């Protein structure tokens, strides 16, 4: 089947899509957007988090056909077109929240969605609750908390 959708503000078309394919597969294998990661294939790890009509979802749990006509934002679409990083991206680098980085795209999308709906720097308990669906195996999460606080602080001061 053919799937047409908007990805990172650009129209996109995928042809010969098998009905069993996920949105994640279409993004990664058909639209050359491998930034969203495939780590569990069942919505447990959050590594494939993207925005679907402005709502964070695990792209591995969305069938390709369900994305027909919808608007997707992936980690590749977060930085400015001039290359300036999104404050969440910069904070993850600065805080040392990136080690292997496989969880990073998903965490960044989830954090971005969280902070744009939050005033000021959220409490640790709120950060933990909001990021509980994103697994990281390298950092022990401490630096991820640092990154979220850092990004929130910088965004509040902008």
């Amino acid at each position, binding site marked *: 089947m053919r799937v047409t959708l908007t990805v990172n503000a650009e129209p996109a078309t995928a042809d010969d899509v098998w009905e069993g394919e996920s949105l994640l597969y279409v993004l990664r294998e058909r639209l050359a957007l*491998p*930034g969203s990661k495939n780590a569990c*294939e069942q919505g*447990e790890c959050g590594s494939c988090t993207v925005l679907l009509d402005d709502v964070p979802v695990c792209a591995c749990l969305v069938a390709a056909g369900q994305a027909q006509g919808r608007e997707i934002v992936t980690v590749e679409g977060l930085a400015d077109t001039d290359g300036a990083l999104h404050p969440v991206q910069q904070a993850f680098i600065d805080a040392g929240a990136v080690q292997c980085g*496989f969880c*990073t*795209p998903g965490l960044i999308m989830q954090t971005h969605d969280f902070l744009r709906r939050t005033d000021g720097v959220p409490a640790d308990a709120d950060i933990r609750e909001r990021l*509980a669906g994103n697994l990281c195996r390298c950092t022990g999460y401490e630096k991820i908390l640092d990154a979220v606080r850092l990004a929130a602080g910088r965004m509040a001061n902008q």
Partner: protein
Amino acid sequence: MSEQTRTTTRQDTTRQGRGVGDSPRRPDGRQKVTGEFAYSSDLWLDGMLCGSTLRSPHPSARIVSIDITEAVRLPGVFAVLTHEDVPGLKTYGLEHKDQPVLAIDRIRYQGEAVALVAADHPETARRAAARIKVEYEELPAVTIGRHALDPDAPKLHPNGNLVRHVPIRVGDPDATAEVVVTGEYQVGMQDQAFLGPESGLAVPAEDGGVDLFVATQWLHVDRDQVADCLGLPREKVRITLSGVGGAFGAREDLSTQVHACMLALHTGKPVKIVYGREESFFGHVHRHPASLRYEHGATRDGKLVYVKADIVLDGGAYASSSPAVAANAATLGIGPYEVPNVVVDCYAVYSNNPPCGAMRGFGAVQACFAYESQMDKLARTLGMDPVELRQNNALSEGSRVITGQVVDSAAPVAELLRLVKERPLPPARSPGPDHDLRSLPGGVSNTTHGEGVVRGIGYAVGIKNICFSEGFDDYSTARVRLELVGGEPVAQVHTAAAEVGQGMVTVLGQIVRTELGVQQVVILPADTSIGSAGSSSASRQTYMTGGAVRAACEAVRAQLGDAELKEPVEATVRWHHRPTCTLDPETGQGNAHVQFAFAAHRAIVDVDTELGLVKVVEIATAQDVGKAMNPQAVEGQIHGGIAQGLGLAVMEEIQVRDGMVKNPSFTDYLIPTILDMPPVKLDVLELADPHAPYGLRGIGEPPTISSTPAVVAAIRAATGMDLTRVPVRPEHITRTA
């Protein structure tokens, strides 16, 4: 640095330096936050095929026949291969070549690879694999490690089921003591659970060789094994490291490597194999489950007189690195303590369980859970403070470990314990109904409002060897080239060291900036066109490749002398750590280790004693890192290592019943989430090791070793239970197991 970290040396946090001791940003950070970083699973070439692996559903069976007819007929299928198609050596392995590339006539574990398919779509490849007809005759299986050496146990390999026995004998084997405690402990099978699944892209080359792009920990040992199995000279197998999504030991053994290359050479097309999460659980080795029997004898005033230990590590179907894991569990088997009389027997055995090998902590983890549980038990029996008992028996610089080796650099065991003990305690849990449910065991599941919740505090300390031991010729190779580019000096660094997330690429740049005084450093991709860097494991890579890069910089400086840089200057150095010895096969004596590292942990837990739910409230830790090459990265290693130790304490286990894995998914194999990890209070000591580059001490593993027993000790303190097995599950606490 985060507020929760104290260091013993003064750090100028305002300085934005980029040399040794600073915390510059990762050079790959931008790519990783924008999604541009190419992990092995992201690689893509025009016309490439997808590989799929058929695996055995049985843990022990004879293969009667394999019929690939129906698989080959499926449109879109380009190749279906079995053991008959392995061009070279049919078996491989890190220490013993006992593992078939594809099963030949016998299956020794569930998930063993039997056949390969290459097709134009991964789903086509999977469907074709499902059409391969394999007739199995099931055989009796050995599925309990302690039973593997029984005389009537079915034998997995021609020489029986013993992989290695490591004995240690010190002093009087018949020593007696005033106070004796015994215990038997069990450690479940832990998975490394890196997030980036196994993957590799093999590209056939015009010279009949193959280029392989793969996520691995040790390019050259992969290269040698792949070449042997393909029947190719080593120079025709060229391996380049692609982006690695974590490793933790699981990428020391081969997974997709030979398979992808076989399919590529057979089809003449690029072939990529990517495991899904379920297959990943079958596609790499795990941490050895262990059964550990200990006896500690002490004087009434708390001096250890003797320790006896009998340790069985279940290595599963193939040897992998079991011999070295057994040596670690034995030589580190009584912990960081001085004991005059020691009898340790450690056995690594074959069974029909999944193969086990390297995972962060590598044998030291299993032993530490047992010896630290014993130290707590001894303290209770003696009526002593458990920290004081440990401090009274602690190793220090100049002590001999049980192999007779003198600890010839800092061993601040008592000091690390003091630091974690003296950390202020977190506030007591507030009584009353208005507290945040999220701070309680069970969280927003609303399983308690505080009733039945008891707080406990536990301590543990551990020891780890750094670098490869037992006389292994351990070295790393580095090439550094200094030249002018546009009038500016630029240094290029080439090594085969695997960046697996730990920050190798950052620290190598720091070393070059410090040594050569340049600002611009280019780290070339790691590949096999240069000599081996050894493995990114054993907490050794900053020590070894850092040492090699520093030595190469020194050689560049020597070549340049006082001259002004005009023409490029280049040096390649193969750098060794000091030599080590093998262990005496009867007594286990010998200077087998390069360096020792120590960490201590204090865990505070809240336990819902009615439901058995545990909330780890805080971990305090202290670790000597010799030199914090990159303080931010040091903290990251310590936090991440603790998370894996906490996971083993309370949740992580590959559940194997009768040789069958019951939970190969992230739905059923639980790793800590951000809700499970507590705040970490960290003391970093920098007591330079004069034998190591910059005085550094390996950091990656110690955090994982003693965090597990500390958490369990805290649960014991809260519940009064013995808890002799990890992970501790709710049913153990509620006695409903």
